[in-house]
């Protein structure tokens, strides 16, 4: 059974259709990269998966359980909505750390509020995560004292602390200075090695090519091309994909 199945997801804002029937599946431990032109609907897709936005049509199935089906699911009670959200984690382009908490407190806040684990367990888990992102030394720093790359690493640890089935990244390095993207990508690569299931929207083509099991190229609300990194990057079938890749390579 796939960990995630997305079936015919459709979403519009007013009269413009942003997702025109998205279909894909993801297996446990796989990394899916989504590339594509800006305005193509990548962010909207991640926001639909995380129930920050609600599609009008389609299904989202996690581990065989239908967690979203058409519009009726957007009227769910807050509690069900929260349970649904816990299947996914989301790392934002702008980090969105909580400024009044230290790195460690940022990581521990949601698990503490969830109240499922003991304080000791949560603290241990947070320290493990800090070690994993290489920020043990900066555990007690506030976000304003950290670089963008460090903040994004904390944001990744904060999302991992809730143990989501699938961790989503929305252009995790786009807001960073070029010299800081490497450290964030390295952390994401490390997660792949520990079998975290991930969906990464990215403009880092080299990264997408080397880390992904699957790549989706999205344009104008549709999946133009889907396949292994070799298939999409080396032998693209769609003209749009070819044009996009040529354009990207030009810039590099």
């Amino acid at each position: 059974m796939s960990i995630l199945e997305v079936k015919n997801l459709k979403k519009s804002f007013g009269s413009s259709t942003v997702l025109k029937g998205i279909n894909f599946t993801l297996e446990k431990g796989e990394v899916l990269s989504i590339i594509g032109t800006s305005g193509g609907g990548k962010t909207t897709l991640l926001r639909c998966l995380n129930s920050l936005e609600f599609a009008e049509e389609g299904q989202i199935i996690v581990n065989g359980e239908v967690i979203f089906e058409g519009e009726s699911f957007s009227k769910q009670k807050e509690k069900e909505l929260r349970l649904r959200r816990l299947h996914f984690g989301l790392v934002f382009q702008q980090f969105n750390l909580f400024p009044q908490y230290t790195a460690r407190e940022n990581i521990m806040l949601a698990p503490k509020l969830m109240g499922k684990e003991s304080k000791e367990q949560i603290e241990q888990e947070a320290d493990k995560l800090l070690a994993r992102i290489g920020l043990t030394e900066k555990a007690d720093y506030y976000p304003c004292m950290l670089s963008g790359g460090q903040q994004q690493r904390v944001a990744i640890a904060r999302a991992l602390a809730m143990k989501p089935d699938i961790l989503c990244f929305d252009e995790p390095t786009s807001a960073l200075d070029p010299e800081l993207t490497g450290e964030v990508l390295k952390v994401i690569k490390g997660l792949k090695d520990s079998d975290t299931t991930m969906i990464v929207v990215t403009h880092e083509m080299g990264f997408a090519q080397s880390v992904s099991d699957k790549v989706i190229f999205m344009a104008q609300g549709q999946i133009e091309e889907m396949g292994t990194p070799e298939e999409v990057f080396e032998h693209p079938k769609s003209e749009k994909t070819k044009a996009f890749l040529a354009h990207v390579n030009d810039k590099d």
Partner: protein
Amino acid sequence: MEVTLRSVTEDLFLNGFLPTLSLFGITLLLSIPLGLIISLGLMSKFKPLKMLVSAVVWVIRGTPLLLQLIVVYYGPGLIWGGKLLERPVAAIAAFVINYSCYFAVIYKGGIESISRGQYEAGQVLGMTKAQIFFKVVLLQVIKRIIAPMSNEIITLVKDTSLARVISVYEIIWVAQDYIKTAGLIWPLFYTAAFYLVFSGLLTLLFNFCEKKLDYFKS
């Protein structure tokens, strides 16, 4: 009775400054929470409520507090007949209505200035709306509204003197009596010292709070 600096100080403090202080304190105590309720109305997604509350806030912020004091004191009696409110009660009511509206607008600005990303980060981490408000947003809002709130609150210190228009004892009223009873004007000037000391203390308090919240940027 001999009029000395000491006797005037005592008189102004007990009969003038204390009533001023209690008007100030009670107004703050009531209008800080009431302002929050009004700000929720201002931000309501239910259009009629939002329009109604906005209209009330417009009227209150758009007319002089002096006039509002008179209306609250005489208005109910003129319209429905019957006894007038107690003067201090009318004064407190007018001040609370007025200041709640100003506070509401400040709260609204503070709450709306918090980026949507903060709410969404809380949401995707599975927090409830209440948790997001109290654990994520509130302290950031407080940090942002401390400066405008301190402005309003220091204005309130001085606005309390307007209560005299409906004959509520406050410090200037008491000081002015010395003109009639003893032919002395300096007690009136002397009241400035009370205002200055009090607003000076408040300024220190607010500076302290701002410092306390300096540890993070948002």
